[in-house]
């Protein structure tokens, strides 16, 4: 965990793009550093008039002018992070930004880690944990659909769904507690009409968990393994899809040993390609291990691209491999389609088939389009729900608490035992949502029920 007291500096806008780049400082020295790197024009200096933009001159560490632009100062706690914050609006040239940033570092600031501004905002109570997680994920997401799904709107709708579940849970607890704590205020005939309500809440959480499991690839990408005999051109196809020389390619069979992974944005969907070792019996222990790793990766991947080369054709070994990887073959690819003279011997009827040349690029667009279609099909049918590991763990605890409550009632235990489970569920929800107020229960009881003799 980074320190939480120093002054940090980083670009607040994506690097290298756009007409304007914003450099942000946060921490106790923000003001002093800004004074050294910015000289305002005739108007009030930003540190004298917080929250107002002022135009002036930026200088580097040695005082040489590097740019003209706008600066703004926010005094703690009224800022994004809750600390003193200074922002420099510079022209979007990497050289300018670099010079000013270096000046800040020379004056005592430390380059910020990814997500550190949000982290401080959370520490200082300026932002909920969930919001901050969203902000950070938005920054790190690579594809359009990921950003959209995990974006603010989705977080607030996930938050909204959880808040709604929590409210129902809290109402149920309050209604049971009221009867337990004030038995004389309720008529004897009160049974367990709310047991149904418990079931409804439980279903809502299960749905959320299921949707989040189905949406999981959205976060980490759909994983497609490239499999086949040695030297059929798996690494060549891998590089061709990536459009760069990521994997080593040689004419020698058995070059690839480790599993290589890269994410590619295919029509806005994140797809991770895994390049694996060619499958053959080998005496070399390293290669043997590589083959095993490759097969494991193929079995646990969401899909497999099965490759064979045109000259050899589709044979019994390929068919055996198809069943060895568990049948989740997305497509069979005939490689080296540019080779002529060789005899093509049949092709499998059961799988979508593509003929591709990594040298000429023939057939590649059709394959990529097929993969995009496949990934779209894999999208959860309901609105995707993205949760991170912390949230998933909390939801699992919510679900466990609800199960305990249902189990207690199912075995003839009374409400106070069920509430022990509901309490766990509520605490877990509160962890996600950032609530904590024991008095809330009593506020609810005394506003909903006429209590007291």
């Amino acid at each position, binding site marked *: *965990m980074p320190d*939480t*007291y120093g002054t940090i500096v980083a670009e607040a806008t994506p690097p290298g793009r756009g007409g304007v780049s914003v450099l942000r400082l946060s921490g106790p020295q923000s003001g002093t550093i800004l004074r050294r790197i910015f000289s305002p024009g005739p108007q009030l200096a930003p540190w004298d008039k917080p929250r107002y933009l002022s135009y002036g001159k930026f200088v580097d560490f040695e005082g040489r002018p590097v740019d003209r632009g706008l600066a703004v100062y926010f005094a703690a*706690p009224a800022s994004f992070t*809750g*600390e003193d914050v200074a922002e420099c609006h510079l022209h979007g040239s990497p050289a300018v930004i670099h010079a000013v940033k270096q000046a800040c570092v020379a004056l005592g600031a430390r380059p910020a880690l990814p997500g550190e501004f949000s982290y*401080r905002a*959370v*520490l*200082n*109570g300026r932002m909920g*944990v969930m919001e901050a997680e969203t902000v950070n994920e938005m920054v790190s997401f690579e594809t359009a659909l990921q950003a959209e799904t995990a974006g603010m709107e989705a977080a607030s709708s996930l938050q909204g769904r959880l808040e709604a579940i929590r409210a129902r849970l809290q109402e149920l607890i309050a209604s049971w*507690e009221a009867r*337990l*704590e*004030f*038995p*004389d*205020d309720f008529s004897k005939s009160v049974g367990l009409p709310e047991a149904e309500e418990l079931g409804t809440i439980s279903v809502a959480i299960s749905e959320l968990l299921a949707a989040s499991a189905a949406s999981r690839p959205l976060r980490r990408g759909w994983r497609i393994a490239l499999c086949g005999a040695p030297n059929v051109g798996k690494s060549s196809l891998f590089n061709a899809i990536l459009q760069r020389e990521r994997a080593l390619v040689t004419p020698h069979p058995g070059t690839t040993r480790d599993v290589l992974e890269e994410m590619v944005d295919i029509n806005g969907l994140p797809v991770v390609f895994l390049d694996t070792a060619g499958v053959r019996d080998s005496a070399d222990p390293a290669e043997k291990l590589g083959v095993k790793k490759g097969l494991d990766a193929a079995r646990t991947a969401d899909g497999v691209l099965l490759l064979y080369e045109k000259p050899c054709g589709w044979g019994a070994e390929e068919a055996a491999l198809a069943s060895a990887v568990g049948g989740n073959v997305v497509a069979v690819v005939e490689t080296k389609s540019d080779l002529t003279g060789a005899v093509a011997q049949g092709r499998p009827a059961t799988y979508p088939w593509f003929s591709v040349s990594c040298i000429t690029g023939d057939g590649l667009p059709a394959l990529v389009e097929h993969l995009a279609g496949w990934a779209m099909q894999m999208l959860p049918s309901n609105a995707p729900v993205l949760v991170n590991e912390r949230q998933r763990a909390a939801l699992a605890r919510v679900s466990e608490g609800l199960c*305990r409550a249902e189990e*207690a009632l199912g*075995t*003839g*235990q*009374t*409400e*106070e*035992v069920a*509430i*022990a489970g509901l*309490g*766990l569920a509520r605490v877990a929800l509160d962890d996600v949502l*950032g609530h*904590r*107020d*024991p*008095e809330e*229960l*009593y506020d609810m009881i*005394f506003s909903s029920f*006429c*209590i*007291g*003799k």
Partner: protein
Amino acid sequence: MRYEAVVIGGGHAGVEAARVLALRGLSTALITANRSAIGRMSCNPSVGGVAKGHLVREIDALGGFMGKAADATGIQFRLLNASKGPAVQGLRCQSDRQFYEEWVQSALSSLDGLSIIDDEVVCIGTSEGKVTGVNLKGSGPIEARAVVLAAGTFLGGVLYVGQERTPGGRTGEFSAGPLANSLKMAGLPTMRLKTGTPCRIDKNSIRFDLMERQEGDARPEPFSLQSSPFPALPQVVCHLTRTTSKTAEIIRANLHRSPLYGGAIKGVGPRYCPSIEDKVVKFPHHETHQVFLEPEGLESLAVYPNGISTSLPQDVQDLIVHSIPGLEEAKILQYGYAVEYDAVDPRAMDHSLECRAISGLYLAGQVLGTTGYEEAAGLGLYAGYNASRALRGEPAFRPGRDEAYLAVMVDDLVTRGVLEPYRLFTSRAEQRLLLDRHTAYHRLSRYGQEAGLSSASEGEKISAREASVISILAFLASTKLRPFGEAPTLAAFLARPEVKPEDIAELVPCPGFSDPWVRLYVESELKGAGYRERQKIEATKLQVSQNAAIPPGLDLRRLPGLSREIIGRLEELRPETLAQAERIPGMTPAALTVLRVALARKRGPP
């Protein structure tokens, strides 16, 4: 005059405090303005209830005497929530008000080392942050190293009946004005709270034949393991009637004459004991409200109408009572009233109920922002015991929240403070299933023994019982319901919610099983055992993650990202652990993260 300890007030908090101090061999003076009112039940003639019943049993386990007093003077016993598990079953009794206070007074008069002084305390003496004694109106100064303030509603007490406003802490009694001022001068933060009581009705003017009868339990359970014979007094019946739409009309038409709604009373009342005018205003869709008619005693003429507490003027009280079925001709013996009083912000105390700013000064009961006889008695015992430990140079008595409701209450009070008079609920405990009423002795009596508050014979009884419970549990776990074929063990059979110990009594040859206490304990051990086990695990987990100590020297101002407000609160309350910090109102998750990070950094990497 000189005593080791002085207790101010003879209510339920004061008597427990004075008794424990005297029993612990410390010369103690109990100062009261009205000797004959010692141990008085100022409001309803009843002890116990859900959570409160648990508290009474904890008081008994620790060696206090409220449970014995209630058993000796109870005229109806009822187990609330009898169909639920032992964690939320609440023992409650109707008491003979007169006998109760006589019993308490006689128990105190037999104590060596306790002097009862009729006088009014005008100020508490302090010097350099330490208590030096008290000053009495009549007989001047008393020196003492410890003072327990249990002044109830008497500090700056004002009684309201309609527009009438008289100084007093209880009907017909005085108001401790000078003492209230002296506390304010000493810098103790105070607030105004409010409570109320209904009128009392002449038994002979009530048509009980028109009302629903409410009997006590046929085989009542006592609060105290020691009580014998039990029940000591003949048992009586209560009655139930309801207010009518006419009652509501009368109240609405006269609301402007209510000191509550007219704005005269500024103090905050407890939501769990609302006045009838509150109920009518806040729940207009409820056509009627229950009224329990509780006899005040075997020979008493008075009946307590539980449910119509009010501070409306006397003529309106007459109209209200007469609008209720069975009370058309009722004669009011004493009118209801509201009382507004000063309470000290409990956050000014530490976890031993000692004032943070004035060492040797302890507070307990309503003056500390609570409501209820049981809460008062528990706090009185706790404060008195801690005062005695401090006087004897022993470390403070501080059980954990998973150990006693008493600890839950103290921790809630001193870390969270109060917005209204505090009442204990079972739901205030994180691990309610571990705090059921049968286990109170096994949780707490060793403390009572250690303190010398409970007798050796009591201790033997408890150990003998514990031994039988263990051997019976072993027998039940190893014996099948039927000797042949597939059959559950007796333990599994008794664990079923519908099975009672009586059902298997014939199959259990162990001699201890005839003891009803043993039966209850065995039953509660078996029923929901799995769920209790889980709570135990959770309690341990909580302890590990939250008992991270906050070092007293931690410089909060150097921690980044704590707001001034939060630093202020933390400095004022000085939580000792992360868990305590977490319970402070207004703590944000972010501030807790900062603390957690700071503590982790102090400890270094794991």
